[in-house]
């Protein structure tokens, strides 16, 4: 399982301070999510696109990620044009297509994609490790930071274990179908993962206690906020202001 697909690279965007990235991404997401003007949101999508170009990400991979996002949005397109009443622009048999509904669906589509693109461009280009470091330095609760680190660390291990179990099932000729046998088999698979992980967590705790763990999280790399961080901050604030003022 290859996670963190976009995190490798040495572009300007990759080198930004994770704290700055988190703050800018959060600010931008909130402003776009609350914006209700088509022009503003259309403008907003330029910001993540510029960052993605700067980060030299593989455009094809970025666009495949957007497919997932747009399934829920596509589902809303099936309804909104017909249910948000207003001016009729087209009659489709017994159904009437309303202008307001189409505009609303379009607005949602742009907003959704814009926010997801900014997450890819800013947060996707840092490793989870760096981002959690950033969260810690921004004052996130200590226990939550621990959870993030441990959870991410063990996703890989649990996923490997899952693959071993699934391969064993396939070797025995298991084919998933809609029946009780399938559900029972998957349940035992999940049960086994839970049991193995529970036992593993006991070993992790002992190993940590052996190394003198007392619940403190030590930061080893101290980062300085540099000039390019200020530039990104300033430009994002500028763009945010433009989105807010465009009506």
């Amino acid at each position, binding site marked *: 399982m290859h996670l963190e697909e976009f995190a490798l690279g040495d572009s300007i965007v990759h080198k930004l301070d994770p704290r700055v990235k988190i703050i800018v991404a959060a600010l931008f997401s909130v402003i776009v999510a609350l914006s209700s003007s088509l022009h503003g949101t259309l403008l907003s999508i330029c910001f993540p696109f510029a960052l993605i170009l700067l980060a030299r990400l593989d455009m094809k991979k970025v666009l495949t990620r957007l497919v997932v996002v747009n399934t829920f949005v596509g589902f809303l397109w099936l309804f909104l044009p017909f249910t948000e009443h207003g001016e009729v622009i087209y009659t489709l048999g017994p159904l009437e297509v309303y202008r307001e509904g189409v505009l609303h669906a379009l607005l949602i589509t742009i907003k959704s994609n*814009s926010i997801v693109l900014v997450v890819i461009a800013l947060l*996707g280009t840092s490793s989870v490790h760096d981002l959690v470091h950033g969260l810690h330095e921004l004052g996130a609760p200590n*226990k939550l930071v621990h959870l993030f680190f441990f959870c991410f660390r063990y996703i890989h291990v649990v996923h490997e274990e899952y693959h071993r179990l699934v391969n064993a099932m396939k070797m025995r000729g298991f084919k998933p179908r809609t029946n009780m046998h399938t559900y029972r088999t998957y349940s035992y698979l999940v049960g086994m*993962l839970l049991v193995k992980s529970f036992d593993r967590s006991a070993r992790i705790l002992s190993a940590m206690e052996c190394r003198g763990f007392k619940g403190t999280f030590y930061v080893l790399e101290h980062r300085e906020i540099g000039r390019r961080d200020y530039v990104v901050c300033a430009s994002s604030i500028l763009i945010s202001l433009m989105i807010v003022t465009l009506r």
Partner: protein
Amino acid sequence: MHISEGILSAPVLATGYACTAVGVAVGLKKVDYDKLPEVAVLSSVFFVASLIHVPIGPSAAHLVLNGVCGLLLGWAAFPAILVGLSLQALLFQFGGLTTLGINTLTMALPAVVMGSLCGMFLRSKSTLVRGVAEFAAGAGSILLSGLAVAACLLATGSAFGPAAKLIVVAHVPIMIVEGLITIFVVEFLMKVRPQMLEKAGVPNLTG
């Protein structure tokens, strides 16, 4: 079900964040440092389980397991689900930053409620009582999640009405499958590691 970015109104998003903050605070308070690895590694399992697709008729759905999550973790389900959803948002772009609060709330609150309600019956000696409770925990969590998502859409605008209805209907088959899977998973754990269900009040027979 994840609600995408850019759909919900500001009050709904803000309520989501406020309630999730409270839930996470309570959850973290109840987890001691020596329980952290357990909660974290179980969160990893729930993350991986959400990648498993089970067939339902001609379609397939991924496992949610928030019923099991509630039974095993109690209030710690809040931070566990928040971490899981954040990582999904970061790594797969399922949802994003502004919906993190509301998406955590719609999944974790049903988990906590159904987990504590149904957990009481796991002590029962009768397989039937236990089975019903386990099914209710799994199916009920999904039902409540579906209803919560629909309520969020409706609170944003009445134009979302038909879409919200369809979401609830689409949750029904998933509900049944999750109920069944919860029965099997919990019965398996009771046989193999009953101490994992201590939160739900199952006596620890292995000592």
